């Protein structure tokens, strides 16, 4: 198609950072209209992300030196299949979050702070996905963390503040470890670019130590069991759109970074040994998170613990990386499917919480019966979390199991299947109150958008059920690893 050719020459990547940043700026300058700036930004960013994905799909990875400066001092933007898929997921979920926030934050005096921070967070995430060197990744990572922490704290009150504080400290700890790793890498090789590092890293002490420090630091940020404890309070007590953004997007950011590092920088390092350790942690996460989700008394806590469990699947990455060349794609697809489904669940939970005035599961029945659309969204997106068919979650689960079996790692296949059972248990626990006898009650009046957005996002998880092939072919346009 001719327009595709025109597009091939366009530098889309910078806009994905510039647009949200500009949005944040405008929202700050013009607080009364912050929401509309936010919405406009979200829409435009989605369009850009879509175009970028198409472009990458058609022409392969794009590399752009900002301002013509070459690395190491200049900043390079790299948009390949993996990055553009994550950008697209972020944009779609981001638009939904923005729309939902329109209703959720309606009538709140300090609402514009949300928009500023949220667009700032979005810009930071996009920048992170597009960064091509380890130090820029550090900076963007810190930006993500600071914005997220501020967003959590936005809710006010003791619980969110304490949660935010804990989140910040854990994140900073992780960042420091990561930065130490960066320093070690630079000390050893004198370059920062992912590709350049990948080309040089060999089996020796410095990169090994760097890899471990960076990985563990990022593990703390992505809340892998047993370093997950900061997540449930933070995600559970933040405002619903923020919870959605944190659980669906921010957690994926540090996972993405780990994947990038091991895919591009450290392929030369041995994974045997590490894969078992990570696999065990992943299994522990799936089990622990699932059990905690079964016990938590509040809707959003259940969903937060569900994130803890599902992060476990992400770190099956390591066994897969070692045993199967394409294995990481399954995990990435899972990350995308989980992002969409989890956002839908959190947004639906937010709607119910707003309608009922609380989110205690035991007393939520009436509102769930009254707010059918939202309960439906909860159900469908929940099915996505469990991995029931016709949802992206099913395809993701299928890919995970397939990869595991293909590589002969049946034990991880068992973890995936067993985790699905636990997920089934807590998702149906969530839905239970809707089926108790009693009156239906619509609760407090809410803008319609708060009901429609979770539903639309839930339907999108069904759409993802048919997106396996395009997503995989987009992932095939990922920049290959370095030296190995």
């Amino acid at each position, binding site marked *: 198609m001719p327009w595709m050719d025109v597009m091939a020459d366009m530098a889309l990547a910078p806009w994905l950072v510039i647009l949200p940043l500009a949005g944040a700026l405008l929202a700050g300058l013009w607080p009364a209209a912050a929401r509309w700036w936010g919405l406009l930004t979200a829409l435009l960013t989605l369009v850009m992300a879509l175009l970028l994905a198409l472009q990458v799909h058609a022409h392969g990875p794009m590399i752009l030196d900002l301002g013509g400066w070459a690395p190491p001092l200049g900043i390079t933007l790299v948009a390949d299949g993996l990055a553009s898929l994550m950008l697209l997921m972020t944009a779609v979920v981001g638009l939904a979050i923005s729309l939902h926030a329109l209703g959720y934050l309606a009538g709140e005096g300090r609402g514009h702070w949300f928009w500023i921070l949220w667009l700032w967070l979005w810009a930071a995430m996009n920048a992170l996905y597009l960064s091509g060197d380890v130090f820029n990744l550090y900076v963007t990572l810190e930006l993500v963390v600071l914005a997220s922490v501020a967003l959590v704290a936005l809710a006010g009150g003791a619980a969110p503040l304490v949660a935010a504080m804990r989140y910040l400290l854990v994140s900073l700890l992780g960042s420091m470890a990561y930065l130490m790793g960066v320093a070690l890498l630079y000390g050893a090789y004198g370059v920062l670019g992912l590709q350049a590092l990948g080309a040089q890293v060999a089996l020796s002490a410095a990169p090994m130590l760097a890899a471990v420090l960076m990985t563990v630091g990022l593990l703390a940020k992505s809340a892998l069991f047993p370093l997950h404890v900061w997540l449930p309070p933070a995600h559970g007590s933040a405002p619903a759109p923020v919870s959605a953004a944190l659980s669906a997007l921010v957690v994926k950011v540090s996972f993405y970074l780990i994947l990038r590092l091991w895919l591009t920088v450290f392929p030369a390092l041995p994974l045997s040994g590490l894969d078992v350790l990570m696999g065990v942690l992943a299994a522990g996460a799936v089990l622990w998170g699932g059990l905690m989700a079964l016990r938590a008394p509040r809707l959003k806590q259940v969903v937060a613990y569900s994130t803890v469990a599902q992060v476990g699947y992400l770190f099956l990455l390591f066994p897969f990386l070692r045993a199967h060349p394409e294995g990481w794609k399954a995990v990435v697809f899972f990350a995308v499917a989980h992002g969409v489904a989890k956002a839908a669940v959190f947004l639906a939970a937010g709607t119910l919480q707003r309608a009922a005035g609380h989110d205690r599961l035991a007393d939520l029945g009436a509102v769930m019966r009254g707010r059918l659309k939202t309960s439906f969204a909860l159900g469908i997106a929940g099915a996505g979390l469990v991995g029931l068919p*016709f949802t992206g979650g099913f395809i993701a689960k299928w890919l995970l199991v397939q990869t595991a079996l293909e590589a002969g790692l049946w034990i991880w296949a068992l973890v995936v299947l067993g985790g699905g059972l636990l997920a089934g248990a807590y998702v149906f626990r969530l*839905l239970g109150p809707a089926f108790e006898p009693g009156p239906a009650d619509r609760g407090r009046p809410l803008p319609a958008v708060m009901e429609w957005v979770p539903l639309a996002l839930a339907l999108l998880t069904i759409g993802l059920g048919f997106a396996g092939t395009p997503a995989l072919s987009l992932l095939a346009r990922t920049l290959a690893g370095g030296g190995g």
Partner: protein
Amino acid sequence: MATGGYMLLLILLSSLLPGVAIFFLREQQFALRTALNLGGATLKFLLIIALLVGVYRDGKTYSLSVNLLPGIDLVLAADALSLLFATLSAVLWLVTTIYAIGYLEDSPNRSRFFGFFSLCVSATVGIAFSGNLITLLIFYEILTLATWPLVVHRGTAESFRAGRIYLAYTLLGGAVLLGAVVWLTLLAGSEPFTAGGYLHHLSADQGPVLIMIFAMLMAGFGVKAALLPLHSWLPRAMVAPAPVSALLHAVAVVKAGAFGIVRVLNDVYGVELAADLGVTLPLLLLAIMTIVYGSVRAVFADDLKQRLAFSTVSQVSYIILGVALAGPIGAVGGLVHLVHQGVMKITLFFCAGNFAETLGIHRVDEMRGVGRRMPWTMTAFTLAALGMIGIPPLAGFISKWYLGLGALEAGLAWVTVVLVVSSLLNALYFLPPILRGWFSRREGPWPDERHGGGRLETHWMLLLPTMAVAAMALGMGLLASLTISPLYWVTFIVEFEYGYDHIWRAIFEWETP
């Protein structure tokens, strides 16, 4: 290239869309809801008739495929077996919808009920039209999702417990199934169902792996088919309203499991390969154990619906027994029981529902003298129960006849002993309610009488469907040789599996006496 896949899609949507629409109706919108329900059910019925005409008269093939993952498609296709199951579902659904409208009159949450009810039929028809194992798996899991709300519909602590147990079993089964299907897909790719199986070309040393996968598949489907160690959810799920029990037992859940087993045995492994692998005999033994165990438990169950539930546990294994005999005649018996059991069991559940709803009868010993108060329902009950025992000329007899002949043909004459024992046990738990109903006198009032004083013994929407399915149970046996009978149809299916000459020589040669 097959065309007309839109027909299949339409058939799915004919229940899906009304179902979704019904969810968002208010409780009071009775007329609209009923119109949507019946309209959808009728439309589906007509579409399936059109499909049948297309397949059998015009020789068309219908299929539709959507890509899911590289090399893996979601395939809907109509072959003889799918049409059999789909027709069963469509017909019984129409009837059950009418029944449910009558049954749930004035009860709360009807919109939700009928919404999930319609989702359930969509999933079942999806299972019927699944063209490969993955599609089957997908709809199978959807069915779990759609039936759970029906099981917990009443919202009592008991129904939640039943729902939990149901989920525990079915999700576990689904997980095992997923593992098996992925594994099989890795070995053999995602092939469409093929009569005679598609695993022949795998090398001989794959044998142990194939056996393992077979066991997993059986465990996965066996959960819903209530095979022996996996049956406990079924009697507990009886807390659901009567139309749901009827549907779970007759068509949807239990049948889906049995249908899956048939598919795996006939169209994935192929009977020949399965027999070579030596997996049919264990399956046969399992089916036999289930048959006997279910019957024994039914004898000791005092609650009418419990008794029917254990009877289902037993009867569904007839289907598995039939296909596990690994011969054409046994397969005829098993497959035809897929339909016959459905019709008879739905009749029994309708009757149980009528008794409970009209007179408040829940236990077998409360049925004294009910024949005089509700002769029509009691007639239907008698017909269906006798059919279950295998008394001619009812549908169950036809199944049992071919199962027996199939056992002899397979050289497993001892299986007939199982049939005999099971028949006697069936008689032991079905005859007492029949005899009490007809010949005992009622002293004192009924436990909870409603619908009294009308010209009919109960609400017409309860009575009419009951009579209709009872008539079917009779007609399927009495007129088994008609070209529209399930038996005739099943012979077509079996023909594809075993080859044309074989089956006709074995079964229908008496046509020239």
